[in-house]
């Protein structure tokens, strides 16, 4: 039975939730506002909140100076490609761990997660040298593979927890009806786990989109995604905050819109099941 909530408590909860939400969103809002200011207004003290002459000049400058379309396309390919490749590998892996676990499954899951604890810079040189050897330096394929490998533990973990929520008896029933392994995974397991798979995809697209170490270090002119686009507007000698904000807004806009439209799926996916 649901707990009864008094209107006063409900109002308090709503106010608290809005406050936390606004606090978290404020840096993004400030970046967006700054992108419409002149450079002088961007550093004004006291800071200008809304009372300034809005200008699109920064966006015009950024569009003129950089090939935004190319950076955007590279981001889409790298984030999308690495996530899809990761899902293709992780679904069978998570299936076996959830439904036919071995004695070492728990250890393997923990070991996979422990690879996330290695600082990326520690393997920069080996990976850079390998990229040179394979001739994939400054190519999208190298980043698709590396970001897939980086995010794979998270994808497997998420799918594993979703799959654990699905009763194994349903899969058994499918097997009794003569379903092959492929049919069992494709036509029985996957449709039931769609919300979980969708939220895994969304979260990993966001992670890959924002990844800024490998995408900066393994690219030059051809495969550079939007993280490199932002880095090109940051400067320790010169105040280009308004232009930097415009570039940042353009870089985060696609993922912000995607997140906005799919927030329902994202939240339901992340809170799916009892053990989270």
């Amino acid at each position: 039975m649901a707990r009864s909530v008094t209107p006063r408590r409900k109002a308090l909860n709503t106010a608290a939730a809005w406050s936390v939400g606004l606090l978290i969103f404020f840096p993004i809002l400030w970046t967006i506002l700054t992108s419409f200011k002149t450079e002088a207004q961007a550093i004004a003290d006291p800071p200008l909140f809304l009372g300034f002459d809005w200008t699109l000049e920064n966006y015009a400058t950024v569009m003129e100076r950089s090939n935004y379309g190319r950076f955007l396309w590279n981001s889409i390919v790298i984030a999308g490609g690495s996530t899809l490749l990761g899902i293709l590998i992780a679904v069978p892996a998570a299936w076996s761990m959830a439904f036919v676990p071995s004695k070492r499954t728990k250890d393997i899951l923990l070991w996979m997660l422990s690879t996330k604890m290695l600082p990326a810079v520690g393997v920069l040189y080996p990976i850079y040298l390998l990229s040179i050897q394979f001739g994939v330096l400054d190519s999208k394929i190298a980043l698709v593979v590396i970001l897939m490998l980086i995010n794979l533990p998270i994808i497997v973990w998420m799918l594993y927890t979703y799959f654990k929520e699905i009763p194994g008896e349903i899969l058994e029933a499918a097997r009794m009806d003569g379903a092959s392994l492929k049919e069992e995974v494709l036509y029985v397991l996957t449709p039931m786990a769609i919300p979980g798979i969708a939220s895994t995809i969304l979260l990993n697209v966001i992670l890959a989109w924002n990844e800024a170490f490998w995408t900066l270090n393994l690219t030059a002119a051809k495969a550079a995604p939007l993280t490199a686009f932002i880095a090109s507007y940051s400067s320790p000698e010169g105040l280009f905050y308004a232009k930097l904000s415009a570039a940042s807004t353009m870089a985060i806009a696609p993922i912000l819109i995607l997140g906005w439209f799919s927030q329902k799926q994202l939240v339901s996916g992340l809170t799916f099941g009892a053990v989270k």
Partner: protein
Amino acid sequence: MSLKHKLFAATALSLITGSAALAETITIATVNNGDMIRMQGYTDDFTAETGIDVEWVTLEENVLRQRVTTDISTKGGAFDIMTIGMYETPIWGANGWLVPLDDLSAEYEADDILPAMRAGLSHDGTLYAAPFYGESSMIMYRTDLMEKAGLEMPAEPTWQVIREAAAKMTDRENDINGICLRGKAGWGEGGAFITVTANSFGARWFDEEWNAQFDQPEWKEALEFYVGMMEESGPAGYATNGFNENLSLFQQGKCGMWIDATVAASFVTNPNDSTVADSVGFALAPNSEGVEKRANWLWAWALAIPAGTQKEEAAKAFIEWATSKEYIELVAAKEGWANVPPGARTSLYENDNYKSVPFAKMTLDSINAADPQNPTVKPVPYVGVQFVAIPEFAGIATEVSQEFSAAYAGQQSIDEALEKAQALTNEAMEAAGYR
């Protein structure tokens, strides 16, 4: 034959001989600052002249440094030209990582490069990077506030004069700080500033045997002077201020004086961004009374070719174009003399048009006052004014400047900071085999 004609001829020759050397695309890694961005805007002129396409990779300075160092040390070949500074050039040149630039064309007039810049971008007398623009540091001050305080800026001020002027200009009620200086941790930020300040008090990083010198009285004197002056007349939280923070304060009229890169002169005198554009004066960086070295550094952003590039000829053609006299004239014709890349060529400072730019003479005088071979009063085993040109320096100086910043912020005493700096530097130098 002008450089332009020569480039035309080179292109034609390559077409006739069937060589594909020039009909290609070169990739250039560069920093995001005003002069470099301006150069990118003129790339089409270069492509029209030579048929060589250019792709730019523009990155923030620290990201760029990490990116190009990874690439050149692994012979990655991701870039055909790299924008590097005076710190990297002699080290990389000595390692054989860069193509020597000793065969540039006669029309290029390599002898026209300012001697101080040439010295800082060479190893064993061979030039390894062509300066695109050079800078030193100098005093930028508010002429109106000086007048209000009843003072006049001497042409060659001492630290003692600066401290007194800063105290008189400080007006806490109106949010005016007499002086704004870097305090932020980082070898290229506060580390660079305190090193040149220490030079002007007669201090040095190492003696001739590579022993750290932070236990000597000159370092203590320099740090005590700096902290004392900043507490009297500096802005709150100066321990975390770098170039950009001080630029912002100065442009908003909150600093009486600012000692920093000469390149800042064009920012603070630009009426679009600066509220004090009409009342800025310039003077040589100060020295402590009786010490002949001034607190000004020397830096250049220069273009270099990584050894092993397949496109060496095209890269050289670009470097000759971008750092030529003709390029300076091109920018002057389109955007005015105040916007040309400064500090690289002697002929620029002999040009009558350029002499009328208010900060031109002070920039040249400041550059000439810095000597990378003899940065301070006592002899040193290293080259470099605000840095020590050895590969270990960036790591050591970052740690040392973190200790100093902690002292500026009042988290530890100056003596403690100097003791830690002494210990960590000697330890690192021992591990690296210098001692």
